[in-house]
């Protein structure tokens, strides 16, 4: 792929996102209610965690602010992943209805077009995650100038986490080319794994920690980077390894996607 082609794809991506957003804004009421609801659900979820933390003070040595940081990072990663690639998560819909046909007819990468469909900017989650991140970081680095290096590193961790979630999401979605129905699998690899990673990994038994690090590596979204960025118990390699895991997951998922696309069976008519 040459540079001219890439710039065309980026223009296309921008126009598709804009059109997708405008389509969505035809139903303004629905959009804002959805945004508010998403923010509220996340707020309630975190409030529950806060109550527990408040009662016990710490979770396995993680303070309330540190837990808040883990929660904020994964919330922002998810918001980023879902904003920029919303329908990767909904590939099943395209496989069942045969709607993928239309995307395959265009002289552009199918994945790129898929990513722009039903663009849903996660304003609610982004706002909530960003405020939680600000509060947590503020509390952790009270009177400590380390916060100024923590901020860019956290941004890197969030971006890397978004790529990792995208990779996991795409890998799961691609299995749909063989399995067609994948919603149950998605609950496992995306929802359950992410929910688990909202808490410090140390609260889980060893086998589950291993699973969340080795098999569905959600630990690399927030826990591993946090060990370096805010805890300082481990070296910078935890962050570096996280970025590497994200990259590897991305490559693997793109491979499976490409292979799956050649096995696409479409629908009856």
């Amino acid at each position, binding site marked *: 792929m040459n540079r001219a082609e890439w710039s065309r794809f980026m223009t*296309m991506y921008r126009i598709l996102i804009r*059109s997708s957003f405008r389509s969505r804004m035809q139903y303004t009421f629905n959009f804002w209610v959805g945004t508010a609801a998403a923010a509220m659900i996340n707020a309630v979820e975190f409030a529950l965690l806060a109550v527990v933390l408040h009662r016990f003070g710490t979770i396995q040595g993680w303070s309330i602010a540190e837990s808040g940081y883990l929660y904020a990072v994964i919330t922002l990663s998810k918001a980023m992943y879902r904003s920029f690639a919303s329908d990767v998560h909904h590939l099943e819909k395209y496989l069942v209805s045969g709607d993928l*046909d*239309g995307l*395959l*007819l265009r002289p*552009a990468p199918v994945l790129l077009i898929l990513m722009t469909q039903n663009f849903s900017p996660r304003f609610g989650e982004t706002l909530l995650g960003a405020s939680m991140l600000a509060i947590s970081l503020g509390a952790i680095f009270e009177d400590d100038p380390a916060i100024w290096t923590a901020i860019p590193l956290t941004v890197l961790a969030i971006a890397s986490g978004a790529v990792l979630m995208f990779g996991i999401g795409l890998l799961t979605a691609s299995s749909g080319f063989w399995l067609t129905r994948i919603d149950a699998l998605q609950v496992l690899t995306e929802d359950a794994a992410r929910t688990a990673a909202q808490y410090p990994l140390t609260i889980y038994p060893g086998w589950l920690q291993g699973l969340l690090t080795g098999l569905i590596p959600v630990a690399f979204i927030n826990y591993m980077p946090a060990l370096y960025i805010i805890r300082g118990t481990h070296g910078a390699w935890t962050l570096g390894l996280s970025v590497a895991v994200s990259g590897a997951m991305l490559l693997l998922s793109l491979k499976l996607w490409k292979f799956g696309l050649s096995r*696409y069976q479409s629908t009856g008519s």
Partner: protein
Amino acid sequence: MIEAIGLTKEFRVPDPDASAKRRGLFSRRSIPKQAVSDISFTIPEGEFAGFIGPNGAGKSTTIKMLSGILHPTQGEVRLGGINPHRKRKEAARTLGVLFGQRTQLWWDLPLRDSYDILAAMYGLTPERKKDRIEELENLLRLSDFMDTPVRKLSLGQRMRGDLAAAMLHEPSILILDEPTIGLDAASKRDIRSLLRDINERMRTTILLTTHDMDDIEQLCGRVLVISKGKLDYDGGIAQLRARIGLPAVMEVTFRQAESAAAAAGELQSLGDSATEAAGGLHGPEPLSPAAAGIRLKSLEDRTLVLECDLKTSSSVQVLRELEKYGELEDIRMREPEFEDVVHKLY
């Protein structure tokens, strides 16, 4: 130019022989089933070809292989020399596809926006986009509803909009999957004359599928018939007619019920031995010239309903034949419908 070379597509379907128990919760034993087997044809540049066949014959599967959506199990497709399964993006530029049953326009946005988006996908320059939209707007008369959201368009308008979308990037090949489906008679005529225009003026190669035989008769110089996954016929319409024959339906009323019964009895026994003669594509030659192509459909009181092949025996001959059994009182003829004729093929 569209080339299909030995196209075969196998799907895996659940094994019907596996016992219900073994098919149960865990194992999904499957066996390969050929949806399309060994189809080859070439449609030269500028030709307008029709592709017909009953539901489930493999028509959609073939269309999807031709347009690069499905990968064939065996065989190869070339669109203007490019293999869409090796170079999908390159082939997509030479190809415009319309699915009559499914719009490719952006449902919630004004029609015009769809063209902006497509122009960006195909990388048209602003000038070329403007010219092209103007041209299509005139040709397909889109001006009245260019700024209407697609979801508010009538089916006929939407189809015209979809046609423009398929042609925006000036493809040299158009694949149209049921472009007249669901349209009223006037809209159908409209779409047909537009398609004829496009084919003649722009020398666009067109492959069209339809269930409406008028589309085929009025547009296509060539017909491909697919049945049970195999190419059954490939040639002109006139030859197709000749090959199937021209079955007409005749209602003949005798003066006496006994004569009717006698004639019916005779035809029945003849029919049993020569069923294939009238309709079958690969049937043997008619056994007796007199009974050729005459088949009994029903007998009601004094009236016989007959099907006869007007190619092998004229209606006068048929009547003369029938008069042997008794005096005739009334005759009614129904002209053969091309659609019915082709359905016989299936």
